[in-house]
């Protein structure tokens, strides 16, 4: 099981495109990448979950950890997600109140820059 992670800059944000399944085995790879980004000075991060088929509690934990790191630098962490089955996971765990969740990357980067 492979987790694809690509980073690109859009407006003033680092957009992280994630592809595959984020679970207890693959989440550490995403965690490393997000830690690296923040340590390199990217404090406005957008994680694009449109290519994600599966997300578990460890993946959620990694996103929460990244949120804390960018907040420590007055930054932001936004998500892009329109898939019902992934949104459901954020709803059940109450994390829709913690993360701004957008329908598109444009919307997410505009909100972060605005």
């Amino acid at each position: 099981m492979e987790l694809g992670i690509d980073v690109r800059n859009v407006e003033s944000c680092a957009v992280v495109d994630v592809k595959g399944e984020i679970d207890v085995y693959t989440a550490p790879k995403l965690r490393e990448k997000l830690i690296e980004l923040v340590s390199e000075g990217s404090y406005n991060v957008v994680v694009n979950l449109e290519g994600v088929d599966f997300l578990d509690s460890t993946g959620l934990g990694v996103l929460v950890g990244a949120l804390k790191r960018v907040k420590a630098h007055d930054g932001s962490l936004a998500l892009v997600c329109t898939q019902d089955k992934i949104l459901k996971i954020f709803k059940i765990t109450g994390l829709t109140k913690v993360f701004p969740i957008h329908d598109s990357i444009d919307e997410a980067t505009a909100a972060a820059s605005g």
Partner: protein
Amino acid sequence: MALVEIEVPSRTAYVGVVRLALSALARSAGLDEDVVDDLKIAVSEACANAVLANEDADGDVPVTVAWTETDDGIVVEVGDRGPIHDPRPDEEVDSQGFSTRSVLSFSLLSALAADCSRTPREGGGMSTQMSFPRPG
């Protein structure tokens, strides 16, 4: 009563193997696609918890998964050999008020399985039973 049993090493890489095998079973049992999605998450959480629990066990013990088809639906049972502990962790939130992984895992499990219970196993460890409805 169809029964499938799977035993995997207590390593996180195997959670995906169980998930894949059980989603194949769930589809061939005729579960609705959104119930298959719920089952994948609940089973993955239970297996991840079992792998983590077994890290605290003596020796290299496997995680066991049993799949049973009943008239009403599917029962999945995931067993570990870890020390007995309450499913609800002591630490529900961290210093900044965020839920801990185990709380998130527990909410997903309880929300996504039609029934979810945890009982001690004979011989040590805990067993998590989850059930999922058939359509109709």
